[in-house]
């Protein structure tokens, strides 16, 4: 369990690998203003908009907790569970400016610590590691924590 392993994003291009200023990378339709996460790069999915001009944007880093739950049993692959398995919490967070809800695992809190409406902020945390690398994901955490 060397702490020196290189850190890699668990998925390429969905968020900035900046632990001080993590941001989700989406896109925004230049025509109608609809925001997409993960980024939609080819066509706007608003049925009343035919635009294909969808520049990259960074999403808000704070939002309100819409709902939350956890998983008490190891899920099947491709999730990489630690051994022994550790239950994890998942939050659905509502971003005001983007008018959308984004899911994420919760860092540093369990369901007992959460309540709908709480302010949550984006953070980066290890999702899993293998012999070579540590794989990093965005997660949500309560602002107060």
């Amino acid at each position, binding site marked *: 369990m060397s702490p020196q392993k290189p850190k890699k994003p*668990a*998925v*390429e291009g969905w968020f900035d690998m900046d632990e001080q200023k993590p941001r989700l990378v989406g896109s*925004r*339709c230049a025509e*109608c*203003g*609809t*925001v*997409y*996460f*993960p980024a939609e790069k080819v066509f*706007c*999915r*608003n*049925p*009343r*908009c035919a635009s294909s001009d969808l520049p990259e944007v960074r999403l808000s880093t704070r939002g309100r907790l*819409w*709902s*939350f*739950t*956890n*998983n*008490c*049993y190891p*899920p*099947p*692959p*491709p*999730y*990489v*569970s630690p051994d022994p398995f550790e239950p*994890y919490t*998942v939050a*659905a967070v509502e971003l005001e*400016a*983007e*008018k*959308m*809800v*984004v*899911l*994420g*695992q919760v860092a540093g809190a369990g*369901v007992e610590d959460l*309540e*709908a*409406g709480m302010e949550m902020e984006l953070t980066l945390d290890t*999702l899993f590691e293998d012999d070579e690398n540590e794989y990093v*994901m965005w997660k949500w955490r309560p602002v107060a924590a």
Partner: protein
Amino acid sequence: MGKDVAILGVGMHPWGKWGRNFVEYGVKAARDALDDAGLQWTDIQFVAGGATIRNGYPGQVPAATFAQALGWSGAQVASSYGACATGAQAINTARTQILAGLCDVALVVGADTTPKGFFAPQGGERFDDPDWLRFRLLGATNPIYFGLYARRRMEAYGATEQDFARARVKNGRHGLANPNARYKKAFSVEDVLASPMVSDPLRLLEICATSDGGAALVLASEEFARKHTTRPVKIAAVSTVTPEFPQTVIEMPNFSTDSAAGSQVPDTPFKDSIAKRAYEQAGLGPEDMDLAEVYDLSSALELDWYENIGLCKPGEAERLLNDGDTTIGGRIPVNPSGGLSCFGEAIPAQAIAQVCELTWQIRGQAEGRQVEGARVGVTANQGLFGHGSSVIVRS
């Protein structure tokens, strides 16, 4: 109305964890449906198959798979897939063939053999598949989404874990005498609340299992049906709607909702639109229904469906349940079959099984679980990737 098709026959292979080839379940269900209709397999002109992604190539071409197993007869075929809503797609394919006058009598079949435990995505490294990614990056199993909806009900409407458990208890009682149900056991609220937590606030007994099973229908034009029966049960509507943009409720297998920053939110949210479209087709409303079969993937989701299919206003589902309105003998019994609580899910067969149950109920053949005076009922179901499913069956 001129838009009805007759249900001449229904058949099911009992749900369970039999571990045999799915074709066997489909053939058994099909033969039962043919017997029930008083027809021979060779009378069937068109076969609509509900596909499964878990049983290799034969599962992806089920109409031909079942046609071959029943004995090549030259029937025309169509296979379709719509996740949990697969069965409704198959029903609608057969129905539209009949309504277009392209055939008189059709067979609809769906069957599945499922692995143990959570439904998992297909294998490999598939960074372009949201279903693979949600497991990889979030560990977002199906129960994770069910848990999010359940917690939301608690936060928005003050629902309690006891309310959810009572939905499970009701369905457990309903399914006790159903010969096709997998779980025939009565549970108390205490039993449910003592079962292990899976995805807070939902416990093991409140989350639908994965099952093997098969279901089939023989559908016919009204003209064809008149030669075979004096009292056919009919399909009055099939809704297979997709959401309207922006879909602002988080849905499997997505990482986010649509954004409402660039357009108006639709008047009717997706889940409300599913049965609404069926009601519009049939020229009926929720107040006309005598019973309903809804997709209780979790105990709490059953309560959401009461509101989504218009049985009550948002936030009133717990009262409807707790007053006994949705229990057999109540005002509008829901899931008299026992629902997914007692069946578990055999994906491509499930929406077809819902129609089998309504047919038996309307014929007065639902022994041990009969809703007295059932004349018209509605099914509701939703499949991931944006598939709605609702069928109205009437006498």
